[in-house]
C-alpha cells in the first residue's frame, strides 16, 4: 500500500495525527520509521530553530516499559536509568531514557539514527514478570520545541517554571500544557537542548496550533529536522 519514495504523508502507513497542519507549508520531507517528518520547513530554519522552532517527531521510534522489573530490563539493554522519577538520561547510542515514575520508563530514539536501536530494543523479550510494554509510540504525539525562547513560549501555556534555572536539561515535568495533559522533557536532542512535549496523540494538532500561537510573539515557527540534527 505504501510507496516508500512518496513524499506525501498519507502515502505512508504511519502518520502523525497532526500531519496536515505542517505538511502544506513544508519545503522537504524525510522518511523516518515508516512515516515522514519535516526535513526543512523553510529558508530560515536554522535561525528559527535558534529562536524558537517546532517540529512534529511523532512517527519517530520510542518505546516504554512499566513494572518492578522495568529498570532492570533497561539496564540489561545497556541503557542508563535515571536515579529518580522525572529525570532523563542519554545512552551511549544517543537514546534518551525518561523515568516517568519509579516503575515507568520510556526510551526515545536518537536524533542521528533511524530508530533502529529502539526498534530492536522493543523486540527484545521482556522479563517473564513485572515488566509490561507500553504503547507510548501511539498513545502520545512527540512535538519538539527548540530555541532560546522555548521557556518563554511555555510560560504562556504551562504553569510550571520551565526556565533553565528551575528546569535544567535532564528534568521532566508531567503537567498541563494549554489545558491538555503533557509530559515536558528538557533534554539534548541533536545539536541543542530542546523541550520534547508528549501529549495525547489525538490532541496533537490542537497542541501544535496552541504552540504556534504562543511562538508568534517570538517570531517562531515550524522547522525541519535538518535544523536540529
Amino acid at each position: 500500500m505504501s510507496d516508500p519514495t512518496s513524499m506525501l504523508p498519507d502515502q505512508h502507513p504511519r502518520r502523525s495525527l497532526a500531519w496536515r497542519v505542517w505538511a502544506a507549508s513544508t519545503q522537504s520531507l524525510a522518511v523516518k520509521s515508516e512515516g515522514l517528518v519535516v526535513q526543512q520547513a523553510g529558508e530560515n530554519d536554522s535561525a528559527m530553530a535558534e529562536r524558537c522552532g517546532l517540529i512534529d517527531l511523532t512517527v519517530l521510534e520510542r518505546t516504554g516499559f512499566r513494572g518492578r522489573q522495568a529498570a532492570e530490563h533497561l539496564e540489561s539493554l545497556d541503557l542508563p536509568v535515571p536515579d529518580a522519577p522525572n529525570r532523563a538520561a542519554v545512552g551511549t547510542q544517543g537514546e534518551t531514557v525518561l523515568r516517568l515514575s519509579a516503575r515507568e520508563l520510556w526510551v526515545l530514539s536518537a536524533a542521528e539514527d533511524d530508530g533502529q536501536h529502539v526498534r530492536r530494543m522493543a523486540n527484545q523479550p521482556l522479563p517473564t514478570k513485572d515488566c509490561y510494554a507500553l504503547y507510548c509510540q501511539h498513545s502520545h504525539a512527540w512535538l519538539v520545541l527548540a530555541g532560546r525562547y522555548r521557556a518563554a513560549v511555555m510560560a504562556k501555556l504551562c504553569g510550571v517554571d520551565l526556565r533553565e534555572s528551575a528546569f535544567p536539561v535532564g528534568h521532566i515535568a508531567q503537567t498541563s500544557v494549554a489545558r491538555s495533559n503533557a509530559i515536558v522533557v528538557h533534554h539534548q536532542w541533536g545539536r541543542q537542548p530542546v523541550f520534547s512535549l508528549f501529549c495525547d496523540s489525538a490532541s496533537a494538532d490542537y497542541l501544535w496550533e496552541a504552540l504556534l500561537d504562543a511562538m508568534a510573539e517570538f517570531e517562531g515557527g515550524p522547522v525541519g529536522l535538518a535544523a536540529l540534527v
Partner: protein
Amino acid sequence: MSTHQRLKAPMGLLIDREKTISFEFEGATVTGQAGDTLASALAANGHWLLSRSFKYHRPRGPLTMAGQDANTLIQLPDEPNVLADRKAAAAGLQVSGQNYSGSLRDDKDARLDWFGRFMPVGFYYRTFFRPLGSWKYWEKLIRRKAGLGRVNLEVRPDYCDKVYRFHDVVVVGAGPAGLQAALTAADGGADVLLVDENPLAGGALSYHRFDSEGNLADSVRTRLIDDVKAHPRIELLLNATCNGWFLDNYLPVIQGNRMYKVRARECILATGSFEQLVVFRNNDLPGIMLCSAAQRLMKWYGIAPGQRAVVLTGNDDGYHTALDLQDQGVTVQAIVDLRPAAEAADIRHIATEKGLTVLSGSTVYEALADRKRQHLRQVDVRAITGRGTVADTSRLIDCDLLCMGSGYMPAYQLACQAGARLDYREERAEFSLTGLPPHLHLAGSVNGIHDLDTVLADGRRAAGSVLQSLGLSDAVAEAVTCSRRVNVDWPIFPHPRGKDFVDLDEDLQSKDLVNATKLGYRDIQLVKRFSTVGMGPSQGRHSALPTARLVAAATDRTVSETGVTTARPPFVPERLEVLAGRGFDPYRRTAMHHRHVELGARMVPAGVWQRPSYYGLADRRDACIHAESEQVRQRVGLIDVSTLGGIEVRGPDAAEFINRVYTFGFLKQPIGRTRYAIYTNEQGVVIDDGVACRIAENHFYVTATTTGVDRVYRDMLKWNAQWRLDIDIANVTSAFAAVNLAGPLSRQILARLCDDLDLSAEGFPYLAYREGTVAGIPARLLRVGFVGELGYEIHVPALYGEALWDAFMSAGEPEELRPFGVETQRLLRLEKGHIIIGQDTDGMSHPGELSLDWAINRKKPFFLGSRSVDIVMARPQTRRLVGFTLPAGTPKPEEGHLVLRGDHISGHVTSCEYSPTVGSIIGLAYVGTDQAEPGQTVHIRVDGGSEVTATVCTLPFFDPDNKRQEL
C-alpha cells in the same frame, strides 16, 4: 482647540515634544504630544471638564492624574468607563464624555443637582416600593438614567493572553522604597521583579518635591533607576498593575492585554499612599485637584495646572507644591494650612521667604464656580475654630486652581487582601497596617514612613528581611521609624448647604454618611451597603478615611473600632477579556477525523472528541441516516469507533481484577473470546459498559464508553490501590484507532485485507477475539454485534488509523462500502434494543431496570456494587426500561418526553427514531412496572402538549433471533 504652551524641561518627563498626535473629543480635534494621556492632552488644551458625576451630573475634572478616581471616566467607541488619566492619547481615537443628556458642557440632567436635597442617601430604597407595583414604572426610568458609559455589544475582544512567571522577590511599586528594596534584594542575590502601574519608575520621586531647593528628588531618582536598569537580577515592568494578592504570593499583574500570573517566594509591597482630599462645599469643582495631581501635570506632562493657585494643605508637602507652582510661573495666591502656625514653623518660614502668603489654622470652606458653573473661580477661606467648624469671617480669594491635601492613606488594598489589619494611630491621625502573613513585607509610605531618607532605609530593611527569609543573608534587618506627621485629624468641614463631598464617585456628602448612622446603620459595612460609599471605581481610596472618621464620630467610637470596609481584588477595574485571556479549549480528533470531513461528515462533539454524526447535508439529516442504515443492513458500512475507551489489564491477577470490577464472570473466560462487561458503582448504578477481550491468560483488553473511560480507569486505579492485585492497568484509548466494519458483506471486504486469519464463521465466530494483520497493519479484531449485523471491530495502533481507513475504503469499492456516522449507529443499535450508557441510563439505573440481569454472575462472591445491586433489585421496583413502537406518521417523541400514567408522570423517553427497517417509530422509555408488559399501551406527551399512544413491545425490534450478527 488650541495647544497651550508646555512648561520647559525638565518638566514633561513623559512627553515627546517632537511628536504630536491628534484625537477627537466630543467631536472636536485635540492635539497633544506623544506620551500624553487623554486627560493631560485635554488639560494642555485648557479643557478641564472631563465627565459628569454619577448622581447629580456635576461637572468633574482631573483629581489625581493617576487613575485613582472616577472623575476622568470617558467613553471610547468600544469601551466605556475608560480612565482618561491612564489611557494613552493615540492618533485617531474617538473620545467622548459619558453620563450626560445633551452635551458634556450642557448636560440637561445637571438640574438633578438642584434637587439633591430631595434625593438623600437610601432614597431609592425608601421611595419606590409603594404604591404596590410602582417599581415596574420607576425601574425603567431609573435604569435608563443609571450607569455611566455605553457598552458596545458588537465589539470583538482583543487578543489577550496570560504568562506565568516565577521570581524570588516581587516588589510592587517602583517608588523610592520599591526601587531601593529591589536593588538591595538583587544585590543580595535574589531574582527580582519590580512592577509599577505608571509609565515611568520613581513613584513620588518623579513628581514630588522632597526639599525646598527642588533638587533632591531628581538626583535620587536618576541614581536609583540607573542602578535598577543596570542590575542583571532585576526586571522592571512598567504600566503593569498588580491587581490582587492571592495565597502564597500568587499575584496577577496586568500589563496591557496580558496578565502575568506571578509566583513570588517573597513579596514587598511598596505601593505608596493615596493623598487625601479635604471635605468642604463644592470640593469637586474642576480646577480643584490633589497637590500630587498638580505636580504630576507639571512634572510628567509639562502642563501648568492653572494660572492663579491656592494650596490647601495639612502637611509640609503642600508647601512644596506651592514652590513647584511658583517655579513654573503659576501665581500662588495663598497657602492655606489646616494646621496651627506653631506646627509648621520651618516650612512656613521658607515659604514666606519666597514671597508666599501663608494662612495657618485655616481652611477653604467653600469653592465658588465660574458663571457657567464648570470651573473654580474663587475660594472662601476661613479660620478653623474647632473640629469641623469655622469662623464666620470669610476671605474670598480669586483662583482657577486649588491644590489640596489633608494627608495620606496607605495603599492598603493588597496588604488587606492578604489578611493585614488597618489600625488607626490617633496620635498621627493615620492608619497603619499590621498582621501581614509570612513572606509579605511593606516598605515606604504604605508602611507609614514618609521622609525620603527613612523611606529608602525602609526599602533596605524590607529587602533585608526578604534576603533572610530566602536564606541569602543572616543579617537581621533593623526596624525603621519615622516621626513625621503628615495627616490632620479632621479635614472635614460640613456646610449647611451641603455638596461637601466625601465620596466623589457616588456623590456622597458628609451628611449622607451621618444620616446613615442615624438610620441605624452603625457598622461601617452596613454604612457602605446603605450609602454605597466606597463602591465606585476608586473603591474608597479617598473616601475610606473620612468615612471612618465621620462614622466613628457619629457612633461615638474610635476610628480603629470603626475601621474601613473590606478590600477585595481587583485593585483597579479589569477587562473581562484580560481575565479570560487566550481561551484554551482542548479537543481530540481521531486518526481518521480529516477523512470524515473530506467525505462531508457533520461532526458532533462527544466529550472532547469530535465524531461524524452522519455524512451529507444538514437539511437532509434523516434521509442521510436512513440511507446509511440501509447500507449497513443491506450491504456494508464502516464507522470510526476510535473514541471508544480502551484499558489494558495485564499481570497474574488480571482475571481476578476484571472479575471484581465487572458484573459478569470472567475467571473462566476463554482466551480469544470477548464478553459483555457492565460496570456498576458502589450504589449499584450502571455507569459504564464495554467488551472485555481475553488476549492471554494474564492479559485483558477492555473497551469502555467514550466519555466514561477516564472515570473507569481512575476507579480501577483507586480500587487496585486497595486490593493490591499483581497487575498493570493502562489507559490505551489514544493508543488505538478502531473501526467497525458492519453488514452482510463485511467478511468479504475484510478477507481482501487480512490473509493471516481464518475469517470463516467457524474460524472466527461471533464474540471471538483474534489478532492478525489488516492491510499489513498489526490489528486486534473483535467480532461484535452492537448494530446487529455481521461485523468486526478492528483496533490498530493509532498512527496507522488513517491508513487503515484508507485501506478499507479502497478495498470496499466493489461492495460500495460507505461510511456511517454516530446517529446511524444509534438507530441501528436501537433496532437491536441495545442501550447506550448515559443516554438510556441515569444516575438511578440499576441492572434490573435495564433488563440486564443476565449480565450479572450471581455465583461469584463479589463485584463492585454487588451488595447494592442486590438491595436495589430486591426492593419493590417502580420503573423499567422498555421498548415501544408507534405507527409511522405519528408525532415522534423526543428524548426526555414524559411517559404518563393518567395525570401522573411514570417515566420518560430515552431514545426514539423512525426506523426504515422496522417501518415504524421505535424507542426506549422508562415506564412504570405496571405499564411494562409487552402489548400494553402508554401515553407519551410530545411537543405542543399533545399525547401519543405507544405500544410496549418485546426487544429487540429487529432480528430477534440474532441470526444476522452471528453469520
